[in-house]
């Protein structure tokens, strides 16, 4: 559960995040969308405690974020980074095992190793466990990263998953694999918050969509409610057509010229 109220953050005199409030519930996937420079990444950094909000309050599972240490947070809150290429001489298993770092001191115990294997299996990367990470493609690497994140909050009913554009630069198949896994985790009871660039992917996977523009909250609600042609025009200055398809169950947004 994430509850944020009255969040403000500025750099110099420029407001990056302005009076933003939202809540993300367990069992739901919240997508944050908005144009470049809307403050999406900054908002996620406030939630992940990388940045400190100037005012406002963030509650994580009912506790004030300011009272939680990095060590406390790491036990139940995982952050999937943007896909960037890892060039380290470590094996896939060693990378995934890092997800268990918050749970052991210097030596992993049996259950840490078991959970790591299981997380790799769930991401279909167990067969690669002894391969070196820099020998994998970007999409495979991101699956390993997700396995690491999975291991970190494995079967934790209070788990929180934050993702900052996790599918940037990945092809269609890997986009679907990563986001499909994120939604399944939400269905298992995790709180998932995900920044997405692609409105259609947000419509396809999210239960709730938060729209930001110039640091302000423009709208929040289900994809069907939020994604209107007018709202998208006023946010992105682009004319679009919204196609609602009964079979798909989610709207499709197509730019028109």
């Amino acid at each position, binding site marked *: 559960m994430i509850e944020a109220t009255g969040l403000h953050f500025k750099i110099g005199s420029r407001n990056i995040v302005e009076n933003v409030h939202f809540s993300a519930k367990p069992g739901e996937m919240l997508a944050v969308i908005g144009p470049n420079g809307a403050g999406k990444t900054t908002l996620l950094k406030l939630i*992940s405690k990388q940045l400190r909000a100037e005012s406002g309050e963030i509650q994580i599972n009912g506790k004030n974020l300011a009272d939680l240490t990095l*060590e406390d947070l790491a036990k139940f809150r995982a952050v999937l*980074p943007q896909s960037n290429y890892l060039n*380290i*001489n*470590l094996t896939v298993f060693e990378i995934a095992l*890092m997800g268990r*770092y918050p749970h052991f001191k*210097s030596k992993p115990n049996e259950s840490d190793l078991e959970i790591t294997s299981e997380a790799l299996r769930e991401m279909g990367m167990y067969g690669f466990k002894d391969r070196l990470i820099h020998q994998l493609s970007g999409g495979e690497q991101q699956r390993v990263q997700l396995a690491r994140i999975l291991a970190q909050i494995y079967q934790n009913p209070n788990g929180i998953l934050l993702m900052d554009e996790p599918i940037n630069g990945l092809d269609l198949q890997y986009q679907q694999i990563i986001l499909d896994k994120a939604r399944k985790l939400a269905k298992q009871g995790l709180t998932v918050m995900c920044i997405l660039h692609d409105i259609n992917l947000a419509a396809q996977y999210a239960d709730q969509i938060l729209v930001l523009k110039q640091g302000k909250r423009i709208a929040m609600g289900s994809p069907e409610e939020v994604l209107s042609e007018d709202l998208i025009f006023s946010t992105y200055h682009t004319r679009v057509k919204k196609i609602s398809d009964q079979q798909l169950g989610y709207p499709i947004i197509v730019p028109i010229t």
Partner: protein
Amino acid sequence: MILRNKRFSIISLLLFLLCSCILSICVGAIEIPLKNLVKILGNQLFNLQADSYPKQQEAVLLAIRAPRVLLGALIGATLSMAGCAVQGMFRNPLAEPGLIGVSSGASLFAVTFIVLGNTVFHTVTLVFGYYALSIAAFTGAFLTTWLLYRFAVTRGRVDISSLLLMGIAINALAIALTGLLTYVATDEQLRNITFWSLGSLGGANWKTLTVMLPFALACMIGLLPMGKALNAIALGEAQAEHLGINIKRVNKYIVVFAALGVGASVAMAGVIGFLALLVPHLLRISVSADHKFLLPASGLFGAGLLVLADLIARTVAIPAELPIGILTAFMGVPMFIMIILRSRKERRFL
């Protein structure tokens, strides 16, 4: 498979260290045959009363070779582990204490202390005695590392170009100030200063060894548990924080312990360049970048390598001795160039 590979490497490195130590003890201006070495050690350690070797060999072994080999191993291990930790902290293999000016900072303070020691710092000398020089060098190493960190790291991102440029500046400043100090130095101080610039284990005796030991142990024991944190940092500083690693605390900790080791090494043996670059990076690319392995392995490999380098330094031109820094530079510079060429290809480090 991977685990066995690492264990195998550690055992090989242990054997390598042991062999270099034995070789270095036995070979020199006065040869000590292996069987005599065993007898002398038997006598010394277990009081076996074996008595069929020249007394001169025993004297050389105990008074000269043993402390020198032990000091070499200790300094090699300390420098390499400190190098490994600093490279990991800056996430760059070029961040070697020598290149980025940490050793120069230490030597600058040490030289200043030698020259001005009696007049300006005599209370410091009174309080710390033999440790005073090490403490001066540590202060220099610490201040430089801290300065580098303040300048080269902005919002968690390491700017490797400013790191290396700062290193050039600090090295140049250290050379200039050392040069300046040579004008006010006495002859004996002058000889000490020359010895500093390229490094030598020639000053080794049991006294220097006992001074080095606490610093080296503190550095090694302090850095050894950082494997997990350094692994996480390899993913990126933000990712490490998300894994519950307190980056600021870890970095402070590494700066203090690495400076402690580098400072004491410089105080005992001068600036020994490139060892700390060569050793961890060679192991990183050939075996594994897992710092839980890399830290102890660097220690073993660095110790063995420096002992061997010292053997060459003192035997290649008997009776003269080469400064050991010349040999480590010969070994390290090709590696340095290789890293630059690779990074040009990958556009990652610069």
